[in-house]
């Protein structure tokens, strides 16, 4: 069979890509992403291009049989969705124009409800992608309650495909091409994850012509968010925390508390800081940007003095993150907020485990297994264990409406991290005022880190 001798075309889905079998006319203006695959003697492109390919074939016009899409209509059901907030209506309208795009809304402002409305409106099979197993369980509950449909789940050892299915990014990365043709709408929750190296593949193997991205913080410091436009669509709607707080989010305040290093800590901190700064100075390195920092690490890794300087850097950081006085401050906070729901965030697991050990508080880190994690979150939600320690794994996504106090014992300079952490306590509840405590070690690098993350307007 010659690739130019026929115009009878068949479009098929083939493990993450589309295969267009049959000949294309010689003089057609073929899209650059449609390539000839000699191995199978057919035209091939990523499944991502399904919508564009169908449009192109229709415009030519070329006769083709579409065997690629395998998504069903949603079964009849009775959705029970609460009345939409104005920002949800606006967002849905903005997205609905092309049924492709990203919506940026703060945590607690009803992104899940917005997505459920989109699923109901499209009326065809939908796949919801989430970064964690906690969110997977949360979404399944919301789908069953809101849409009145059984929710399928893929991830954490479960493999149940339904017309509306929730899947973790990790499972979709491994197995996306097995079910990439089965959904018309793809909802990417916390969609900034999709822009990470590797996960972009998920967006490429799904055929879904309709795509909705949801995030509280679309922008990534590595610029990866630019990939979202191709994988999902443009940013179609955005509202900030300050625009929605009070009416649709809980009122909140941010309080900064400075803790002193004790004399021994101060001495060790100053010595370690001077050691790594001296190394950097002598070599003309000023690690003030991500690129300069990479250069510093590269140079330092090459010699014993450099490695000692790196170790000194880590030591001074650890001292600033967890001096004795921060633990004393935390003890007082927990006593003051007795009976309330408190989330304690640290920058690293070591400090998180130290808090858990000292104060005998439940803890969730990346090492916590699923069953224990579920039990801890359940006990936190219903108030049996009112305090919860974590490093970074609960930065996003977990829904705990009752939580009203967040303590940032230590963190990075990332604005996104802090907006996400603040988001954990902003879900509206009657009479709720949320408080975010930021505990800093006085006269250390933490002061600078705090200034950096306070660039966001949420830190009024």
């Amino acid at each position, binding site marked *: *069979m010659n690739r130019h001798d026929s115009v009878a075309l068949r479009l*098929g889905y083939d*493990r*993450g*890509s589309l*295969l267009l*079998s049959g000949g294309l006319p010689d003089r057609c203006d073929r899209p650059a992403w449609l*390539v000839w*695959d000699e*191995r*199978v*003697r*057919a035209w*091939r*492109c*990523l499944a991502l291009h399904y919508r564009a390919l169908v449009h192109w074939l229709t415009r030519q016009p070329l006769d083709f049989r579409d065997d690629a899409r395998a998504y069903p209509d949603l079964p009849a059901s009775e959705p029970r969705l609460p009345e939409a907030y104005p920002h949800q209506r606006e967002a849905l309208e903005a997205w609905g124009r092309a049924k492709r795009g990203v919506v940026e809304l703060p945590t607690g402002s009803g992104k899940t409800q917005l997505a459920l409305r989109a699923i109901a409106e499209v009326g065809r099979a939908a796949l919801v992608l989430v970064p964690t197993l906690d969110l997977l369980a949360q979404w399944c509950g919301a789908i069953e309650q809101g849409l009145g449909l059984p929710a399928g789940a893929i991830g954490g050892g479960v493999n149940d495909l339904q017309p509306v299915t929730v899947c973790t990014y990790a499972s979709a*990365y*491994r197995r996306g*091409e097995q079910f990439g043709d089965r959904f018309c709408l793809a909802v990417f929750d916390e969609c900034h994850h999709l822009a990470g*190296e590797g996960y972009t*593949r998920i967006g490429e*193997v799904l055929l879904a012509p309709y795509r909705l991205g949801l995030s509280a913080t679309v922008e990534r410091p*590595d610029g990866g968010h630019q990939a979202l436009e191709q994988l999902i669509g443009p940013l179609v709607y955005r509202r900030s925390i300050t625009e929605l707080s009070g009416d649709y989010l809980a009122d909140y305040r941010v309080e900064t*508390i*400075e*803790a002193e290093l*004790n004399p021994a800590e101060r001495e060790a901190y100053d010595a370690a800081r001077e050691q790594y700064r001296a190394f950097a100075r002598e070599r003309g390195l000023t690690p003030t940007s991500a690129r300069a920092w990479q250069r510093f690490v590269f140079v330092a*890794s*090459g010699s*014993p003095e450099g*490695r000692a300087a790196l170790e000194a850097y880590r030591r001074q950081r650890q001292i600033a993150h967890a001096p*004795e006085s921060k633990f*004393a*401050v*935390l*003890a*007082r*906070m*927990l*006593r*003051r*907020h*007795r*009976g309330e729901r408190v989330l304690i965030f640290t920058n690293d697991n070591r400090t998180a*485990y130290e808090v858990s*050990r*000292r*104060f*005998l*508080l*439940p803890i969730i880190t990346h*090492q916590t297994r699923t*069953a*224990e994690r579920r*039990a*801890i979150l359940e006990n936190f939600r219903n108030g*049996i*264990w*009112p305090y919860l320690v974590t490093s970074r794994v609960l930065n996003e996504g977990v829904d705990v409406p009752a939580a009203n106090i967040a303590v940032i014992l230590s963190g990075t300079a990332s604005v996104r991290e802090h907006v996400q952490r603040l988001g954990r306590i902003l879900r509206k509840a009657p009479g709720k005022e949320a408080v975010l*405590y930021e505990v800093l070690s006085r006269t250390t690098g933490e002061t600078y880190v705090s200034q950096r993350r306070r660039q966001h307007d949420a830190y009024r």
Partner: protein
Amino acid sequence: MLTADLLDYRRRSGAVTPRLLDPAAPAAREAATALLALVQGQVGQPRAALDDALRAAEFPALPPKAAAGLTHLLLERCTFEVAASVDPVALRRAVFDAGAAAWRGAEPGRDEIRGRPDSAPGSAPGEAGWRAAVLARAAGALGLDAAAADAALFADLEENQRLLALEPLRAEELPYRYNVAQVQGLLLRAERVTLSAPWPAPRRLRQLMRWLKFYRLLFRQEPGAELMLVVDGPLSVLESATRYGLELAQFFPALLLWEPPWRLDAELRLGKARQRARLRVEPQPWLRSHYPDQGQWIPDEVLRFVETFNAHTSPWRAAPAEALLMLSGNRCLVPDFEFHREGADPVYLEHLAWPDAAQVMARLEQLAAAGRADYLLACRGVPAVKALGAHPALVTFRRSLLPGLVRDALTRLRP
């Protein structure tokens, strides 16, 4: 397998050269010996102690990446265990229950959050005396004392797990493993791999083909004066990266067993920007396979099929295929099985690992053009293949190739 940050290579004009260790050099030998002794000496100790000891070890004669890579390969061979007399999860549940009850019973905090740190441990919630009392209460309910409970509270964390054993390895082997892992790490990022060699003896060619099939690699043969096989890389548009990439990486030590001369050329995509680069590997003394050389080895699944097929009464007898069937343009067919019947020419069968309608179609056309009516193709009956309709040379199956299906096809072909 080495992670991306441990890959060490030089890049010049688009060509990538992995920085390999000279296994005979004292620096590599001494580092491998010292690392093995260090890890072996930590058997029975917590993981954190092992990590500290590894961090403190200095190998100034070795590039830091190489030291980190050797360490990584050794850690992959370690088995760790949880050392605790009680289930840490159950213990934590009891401790957190007791902790929560104690916090609930605390005096409401009227003290200022801002203030001087406490100078001495006291018995107020969150202070040292309070902690010991709560922990003792929770531990007592589980029949433990407070110290044992404290030790077991997070015994299941990675850093607290105990090193149980190190899978044996001779120190002189470690640099070779490192070198092979450097190439494997690059192959995970390959779009296409081309294997070239002067035309080998049929038995050696069959050995190579068997490896390619065993690792389920997608390949095609290019016509030419020398053997040229083009193998799809994990980053080709067709395949998902992870599993296929691992198969390709695992194929590499098998290739190292192959008789020289040969050449591997890979087209790579490196880094976040997926920049194009080329890798060339040829047999050389620093690259040595750790797979046993099984010579003309036949995969178990082939032997199992032959055994099951021949257990039934039938005029046909199955055997692992030995022949290579040459086509025009120096192309060849590499069947997996051959079937003999008294007084008749043999029939061959090839098992296609990744059935694809267009590929099956092309293969059937190739057989027709070569006039081969003695060749069967077997593959899973995925819907796209089924849609091609029945063909006397095509055997489709659901899960595995069953002898009955092949017997029926043989009967249709040679009534």
